[in-house]
């Protein structure tokens, strides 16, 4: 037996095995890009076909949405009106109501949980709020349509108000409750990231806790909170089941929360769940709405991430 020399060149196993494995893993990661491309291409191609039937200007600026029947004989596209403004209006109205409900509730509970609550209270309130986030939206929709909407209608009639049974208010309020945990948990993180030294500085000057929160912590956490509100708004705009079940399909152009409105997502569902020729303007319009929804929510998300990242850098 001869003394073997050290051979630093000899690989333990053929290197191609490792390279192949890494390549396969990399392909799986690349799938994410493929999915995004798939979304953009599928939405875009159908949307372009839609704009071949209905002019883009009518879609973006038209004040009338009624894909079922022609309003006028000379109507472009001849099988309905495709002005998305009432849908955008309805989506924004319901989302605004949801944000009006969720922002104060979510922020107040985040502040209370991070600044006041004892450890034991946190340990059961936080999971309880997370349950609220885990309830499927179809359940919220059912509850909104069959319990909250009649309740609001009844309360309204006692106050002498005429409230539609599919009011924007009912859908908005329930959606607001749904996004409370989203806002509260994101804001909680942001508030906790505010350095303790700032709290000490304020308390050391003799500020009360609420003064510290209002004058020091909230201003310091503001960018992060703004980011979390943007994410919540994006969630509200993209929410589907609650509005499908509780907001209905009446494309009213109104800012009155007691009236029925419809949203982009509710219309997509109604356009694509009936039996439809795949090529009709009606079906294709759903993809145009989907593209609009995708672009809007994407912008909100990107903006939110940029704000939050910038905010993190400030305190790292």
């Amino acid at each position: 037996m001869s003394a073997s020399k050290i051979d630093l060149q000899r690989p333990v196993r053929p290197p191609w095995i490792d390279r192949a494995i890494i390549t396969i893993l990399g392909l799986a990661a690349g799938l994410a890009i493929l999915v995004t491309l798939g979304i953009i291409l599928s939405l875009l191609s159908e949307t372009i076909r839609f704009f071949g039937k209905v002019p883009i200007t009518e879609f973006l600026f038209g004040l009338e949405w009624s894909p079922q029947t022609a309003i006028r004989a000379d109507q472009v596209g001849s099988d309905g009106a495709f002005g998305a403004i009432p849908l955008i209006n309805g989506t924004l109205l319901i989302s605004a109501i949801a944000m009006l409900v969720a922002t104060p509730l979510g922020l107040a509970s985040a502040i209370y949980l991070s600044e006041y609550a004892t450890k034991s209270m946190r340990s059961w309130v936080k999971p309880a709020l997370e349950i609220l986030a885990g309830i499927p939206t179809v359940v919220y929709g059912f509850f909104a349509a069959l319990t909250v909407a009649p309740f609001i209608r009844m309360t309204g009639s006692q106050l002498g108000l005429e409230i539609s049974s599919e009011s924007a208010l009912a859908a908005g309020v329930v959606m607001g409750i749904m996004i409370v945990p989203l806002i509260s948990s994101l804001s909680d993180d942001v508030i906790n990231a505010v350095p303790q030294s700032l709290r000490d500085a304020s308390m050391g000057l003799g500020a009360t806790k609420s003064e510290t929160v209002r004058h020091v912590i909230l201003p310091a956490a503001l960018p992060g909170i703004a980011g979390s509100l943007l994410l919540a708004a994006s969630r509200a705009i993209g929410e589907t089941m609650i509005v499908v079940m509780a907001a209905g399909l009446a494309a009213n152009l109104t800012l009155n929360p007691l009236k029925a409105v419809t949203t982009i997502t509710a219309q997509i569902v109604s356009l694509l769940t009936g039996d439809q020729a795949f090529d009709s303007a009606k079906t294709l319009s759903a993809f145009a709405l989907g593209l609009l929804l995708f672009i809007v929510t994407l912008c909100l998300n990107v903006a939110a991430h940029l704000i939050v990242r910038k905010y993190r850098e400030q305190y790292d």
Partner: protein
Amino acid sequence: MSDPIIRAQNVDVFYADKQALFGVDLKIEEKQVTSLIGPSGCGKSTFLRAINRMNDLIPICRFRGSLKIDGQDVYAPAVDVVSLRAQVGMVFQKPNPFPKSIRENVAYGLKIHRLTSSKSELDGRIEHSLKSAGLWDEVADRLDEPGTSLSGGQQQRLCIARTIAVEPRVILMDEPCSALDPIATAVIEELIDKLRRDFTIVIVTHSMQQAARISQRTAFFHLGKLVEVGSTKQVFTNPVEERTQNYITGRIG
């Protein structure tokens, strides 16, 4: 010598079951600088934070004993910590300006305590405080820039200006120079010496040289006990206790 402004008697402080201070008796004279020195973990910061009850913010922290400022028991039930902290200010280890403008940093205490009644009075107090903190000449033309844009030493002087704006009787300083370079430290030390005319200052420091340079009295803490207190000169040149001797000569630390 006049009556001491702060008189601590038999002070014990506990973190949950762990005792951090053991029967501390300490008198602090008015309008002097008193240094608290000792190795890390000796309880000097805990004692400092007990004076303006910042320890209350730590839920597991308990206080036992008597701590009087100007004859008032700080831990009496009638004491309002907000009022206490307004009159016993604090400067922290790391400069911690609020992420707001220089002006708002100084105005904050004045605003929450409603100490000024007009804009011009507020501006006057801000200017006066910044001048007292020796910062005015450097920031007079950029009061609306964020406090965080200043250098470390400037930030710490801003924090001092913020504290003295409220005109407390006592200023507690918790290693105020530990995060600063030697030049910034020298500026702050000079400032502390000037502030002595108007305020009673209690300063925790890990630097014996600093204690020797700026304080009139020095208290040495070790393992949660007050070992020795006396005039700075006496403590550093002729300590009574052997442990003090060991510490100042670098044998324990």
